[in-house]
């Protein structure tokens, strides 16, 4: 039964991850809430579980020439150093305490996501209105550069 639950929770996390929504942020609390997995262990599980999927996705993206390698050195080197230090630091934080911090982290990320969605929604509507005014329906235009270009033409 427990095994089945782990797989189901994994599938839900994977679904969100596959849609590019950062599935791990929900895989971790689901593991702790529904299976009683300890917080540190849940975090370790998430880090490991997403490696094969990320590696596969990366392979596809590199093939499609979507990956920019110029940032690898400047972002990844400091990131790995900070990541190793932070992982080491979690050892001195208790499971229950870490879970609370994780909750705050989720709330902040969730609100950020909500604001992003709202901003994009407003932008889209503005573009739609403009297009309608011009007698054209081009709802897919999102970037502000294209907006500027359009203003220029008008």
């Amino acid at each position, binding site marked *: 039964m427990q095994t089945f639950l782990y797989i189901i929770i*994994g*599938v839900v996390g994977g679904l969100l991850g596959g849609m590019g929504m950062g599935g791990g*942020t929900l895989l971790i609390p689901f593991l702790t809430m529904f299976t009683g997995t300890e917080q540190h262990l849940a975090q370790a599980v998430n880090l490991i579980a997403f490696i094969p999927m990320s590696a596969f996705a990366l392979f596809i993206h590199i093939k499609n020439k*979507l990956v920019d390698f110029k940032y690898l050195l*400047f972002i990844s080197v400091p990131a790995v150093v*900070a*990541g190793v230090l932070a992982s080491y630091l979690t050892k001195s934080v208790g499971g229950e305490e870490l879970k609370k911090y994780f909750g705050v982290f989720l709330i902040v990320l969730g609100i950020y996501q909500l604001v992003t969605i709202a901003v994009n*929604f407003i932008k889209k509507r503005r573009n739609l209105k403009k297009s309608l005014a011009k007698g054209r329906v081009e709802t897919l235009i999102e970037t502000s550069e294209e907006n500027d270009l359009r203003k220029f033409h008008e």
Partner: protein
Amino acid sequence: MEKITKKIIAAAGGLFIGFINGFFGSGGGMLCVPLLEKALKEETKRAHATAILVILPISIASAVMYLLGGYWDTGVVLTASLGVVLGGIGGALLLKILPSEIVGLIFALMMVGVGIKLVAF
């Protein structure tokens, strides 16, 4: 000059992303995309793809640290990973069918809800 500014932003962002991803075992990708897209002016699709390249080494390094710290359970790791791979394939396929805005909205609300539950109860 602008190049140097970009490198400093990239390195500072990297430090922050690495710390968060190591401390919470997740979330690095969600932070890396806006860094690449908004601060470093990378195109959306490229930002998403490049974020994986940045996150993968951090996740591997952090995972090793957790393992060395003794956080390992073969049963959970294998079953949850199997689920993640299956779900990941499903998610990539669903992405073409489902309206991403509504999915994103539900996901954001769930994050806030679950976060409140973790903090308060």
